[in-house]
């Protein structure tokens, strides 16, 4: 793609050409500066409030003082419920779509289409659904369980898509070889295909975690607001994202703690995203990351 630069950008071109080059570079610079502003703001204000005490203590005075210990525990519990649901269901679906439903398979196409639609559903609609179905209809109430299950519905399409791509990347010769050896499909799956598709699974997992950690709107009416340490998954628990929302919108003077929580959340996401692109860069083509990210 560099050939373009040699053709004209360096030589004297037309006016339109020079202007176009200038505009694109200005755009890039502007965007870079804008996001630099955002990131430095978060780090500058957030770093001051982060300490060991902040990470472990319970919030006091509506979160203005104290820390975010119980909130981190709730966040991780919600994530745990979400993953415990998504992993088996998502892997099963991905294996079915990738290995048992060739293109043109009616049922497989139907499932793929509905997953595509599911991926586009706005998060607040997941919140409404989670509240109506898990909290009210199934009687789970505002709880970590309801929140995690609601998030699972949201994360499922992302995880399945990535798993399926991982399975697709496994060369057919492996399947043929396994079939020629008389291996059952179950053995082929557990001993050949899934290990070979592990990078895809890992990327899907990591992307799903990222999406789940970032989510707020779907959780407000399913996992609830309670900022105490949860005793079980039937207790209501406040996630980090909801904590940031509460502190900035409903608690006057909560900005400092909100910056701190935002920085903790972003650091968690950064580590996870770093992991995702590391795995993706190592095993998958660079190309897929663009679409998945």
């Amino acid at each position: 793609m560099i050939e373009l630069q040699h053709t004209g950008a360096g030589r004297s071109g037309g006016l339109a050409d020079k202007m176009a080059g200038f505009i694109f570079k200005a755009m890039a610079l502007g965007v870079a500066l804008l996001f630099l502003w955002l990131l430095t703001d978060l780090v500058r204000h957030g770093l001051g409030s982060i300490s060991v005490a902040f990470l472990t203590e319970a919030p006091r005075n509506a979160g203005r003082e104290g820390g975010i210990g119980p909130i981190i525990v709730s966040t991780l519990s919600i994530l745990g419920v979400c993953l415990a649901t998504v992993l088996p269901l998502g892997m099963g679906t991905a294996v079915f779509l990738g290995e048992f439903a060739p293109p043109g398979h009616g049922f497989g196409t139907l499932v793929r289409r509905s997953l595509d639609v599911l991926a586009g559903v706005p998060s607040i609609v997941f919140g409404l659904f989670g509240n109506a179905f898990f909290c009210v209809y199934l009687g789970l109430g505002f709880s970590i369980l309801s929140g995690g299950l609601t998030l699972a519905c949201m994360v499922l399409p992302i995880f399945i898509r990535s798993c399926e791509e991982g399975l697709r990347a496994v060369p057919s010769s492996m399947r043929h070889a396994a079939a020629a050896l008389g291996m059952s499909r179950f053995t082929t799956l557990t001993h050949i295909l899934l290990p070979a598709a592990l990078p895809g699974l890992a990327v899907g997992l990591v992307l799903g975690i990222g999406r789940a950690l970032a989510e707020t709107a779907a959780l407000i009416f399913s996992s609830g607001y309670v900022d105490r340490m949860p005793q079980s998954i039937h207790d209501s628990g406040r996630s980090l994202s909801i904590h940031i929302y509460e502190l900035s919108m409903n608690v006057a003077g909560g900005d400092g703690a909100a910056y701190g929580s935002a920085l903790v959340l972003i650091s968690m996401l950064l580590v996870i995203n770093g992991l995702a692109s590391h795995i993706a860069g190592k095993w998958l083509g660079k190309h897929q990351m663009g679409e998945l990210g």
Partner: protein
Amino acid sequence: MFPLLSDPWLNRLLKLCAGMSGALVLLILIFLVVESVPALSSIGLFSFFSDPSWSPAEEASQGSFNMVPMVAGTLWATLLAMLAAGPVGIGLAIYCHYYATPVMAKLFRKLLELLAGIPSVVYGFWGLTAIVPILAKIHQPGASLLAGAMILGIMILPTVALVADSALFQVPRELIQGATALGMRPWSMIWGVILPTSRAGLFTGLLLGAGRALGETMAILMVSGNVVQHPETLFSPIRTLTANIALEMAYALGDHRNALFISGLLLMIMVTTLVILAELAGRRRYD
């Protein structure tokens, strides 16, 4: 090993998983409709755009349920965000492909991936503490349609840019080599060859961005003021459909609660239409 999991069983088990995953979207739709229907009969479809205002109540007869200002708020915020993020997003993708040095392009893609992962609540919080005070100096109250559109635009920019970027990857190399051989200058090549070739992919990116903006809740809720009114100017506070659900769901009962589910259904229809359009515009990866 597991005799039960001999092949027919495996097939059935996996089919069950796939069926459950596939049925999820149907389940969501059913629950939205079931919760909406009582309000449709007691409030009546007509009230949603003819009532004098949005002042909902548990009993349909005691409240008024005009959703038009919030639909307008949602559409205006999305439109303005797209006007900003569309050209800039595509511009960034073009910059990465044809103007940046390889190192810069790589850095930019990393930055965009990072930004796409930042939670919307963090964008909203930053907008509230950094953008809104600046806007308030220009024109009170600061929290407004403009602030909402700006934050939405910033949020969807990475999505638009990343999809546009992968669309540009799909421009056949021969076309670029041909254009270079003809001595075309970069801009003529971009305008005359590259943009027309990648049109479908770029359009997909725009539609996906618009879908994300329409469905976004937290960021817009935190910066746009949340007054239910038709936006008169850019500086009027607005409330979007999504923000309305998030704000009122906590205490909504009876017909009010059902009305919120109707707005959820409306949102789902709007966003799903955009997603389907995006799929039709871009070439499918499956099949």
